[in-house]
């Protein structure tokens, strides 16, 4: 598998939220507007990539029996460092995301990638795996955030998009609205995924059929 394939699979095929259905909690909690969703997406992208790098570097020294606590410690360290740096030098960003930063430690997707990928691979593939998964997560968060912000308050990134008289359903900015949006989107992604699988199957059949024809003509 080349690096592009490793990177790409996190965005669609194995999208953390829409295909793997991991880390749904932040997908519910932080997507009531696009700005928060985007901020959270970036933080997770950074943490998951950094964690994959660290885990792939130290994997030979980690005793397999305590790998999960060790991974959690590494993730917690990265998150704490991020928090300290944001607090000191980017107070505006820290103000918006401060609440959710600590939650990043327990995101299932980060631990899952450490366990499934970084523990078994070298630094470079782990970097691309983390980046791909992070981008996939961020894209999914922004998707959900955009739908909720548009339908709820009728804005996008804080700018009024729909006419000011639009009085959106309150449910969209509350947790149940997030459930609805995520559910429908997972459904949509499954339909697209099935369609793609079908196309690939048809192509494969066509190829073998063509192969048979060639063989026959040769015979």
């Amino acid at each position, binding site marked *: 598998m080349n690096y592009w394939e490793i990177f790409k699979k996190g965005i669609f095929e194995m999208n953390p939220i829409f295909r793997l259905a991991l880390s749904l909690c932040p997908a519910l909690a932080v997507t*009531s*507007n696009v700005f*928060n969703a985007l901020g959270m997406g970036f933080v997770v992208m950074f943490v998951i990539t950094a964690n994959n790098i660290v885990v792939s570097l130290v*994997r*030979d*020294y*980690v*005793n*397999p*029996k*305590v790998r999960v*606590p*060790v991974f959690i*410690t*590494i993730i*917690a*360290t990265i998150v*704490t*460092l991020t928090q*300290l*740096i944001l*607090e*000191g*030098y980017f*107070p505006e960003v820290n103000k918006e995301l401060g*609440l959710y930063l600590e939650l990043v430690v327990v995101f299932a997707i980060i631990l899952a990638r450490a366990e499934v990928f970084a*523990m*078994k691979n070298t630094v470079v593939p782990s970097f691309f795996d983390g980046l791909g998964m992070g981008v996939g997560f961020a894209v999914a968060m922004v998707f959900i955030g955009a739908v909720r912000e548009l339908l*709820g*308050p009728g804005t996008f990134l804080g700018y009024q998009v729909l006419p000011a008289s639009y009085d959106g359903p*309150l449910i969209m*900015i*509350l947790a149940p609205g997030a459930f609805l949006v995520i559910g429908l989107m997972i459904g949509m992604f499954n339909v697209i995924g099935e369609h793609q699988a079908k196309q690939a199957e048809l192509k494969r059949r066509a190829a073998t059929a063509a192969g048979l024809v060639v063989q026959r003509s040769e015979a």
Partner: protein
Amino acid sequence: MAHGHDDKNNSVIRIAMNLALTCFISGVIIAGTFAITEPAAEAQRIKAKNDAMRELVKDADSFKAIDGKDGWYAGIKGGKAIAYVVPAQGKGYAGVIQMLAAVAPDGKILDYKVLKHAETPGLGDKMTEPKFRNQFAGKTAKDMEVVKVPTDKNIQALTGATITSRAVTNGVREAAEAVAAYSAGQKK
């Protein structure tokens, strides 16, 4: 993983040492970073607080900490205290809402600023918007009651965020009462 799974490597002591070493390294890294970033973070906190006070009491020339009252500041103009900036808090829908309230010496509210909260985005967090905030200006403690139908004397609750509205109002009212009591004591 490259190292074997033999019994020697999996003794309790080795496992414990592995984890302890991880925690130790992590602790060292965090402590080192903290030592570097803390001065910057402290400067940011002081700046944020000064900015917040200046925003609340625009006319003041300087701010002076009040002895014996933790976190209280007096906004001074021409040698006279024109306003007090005091910490206020209320129990919101999702935890404590921390605010700074600016109160005139006669107990009338000037404005308030929310420092920290965890209210629902899109509902409760509208408490920071001028539409809700401006209702407080010029009111004293007795005029602050949360209602759903607006009058001049009261505070109209935010739609879908009655608990938040009450929390903010209670916090600000307590601050107003405290300042009124304090400045009454000063005059004696």
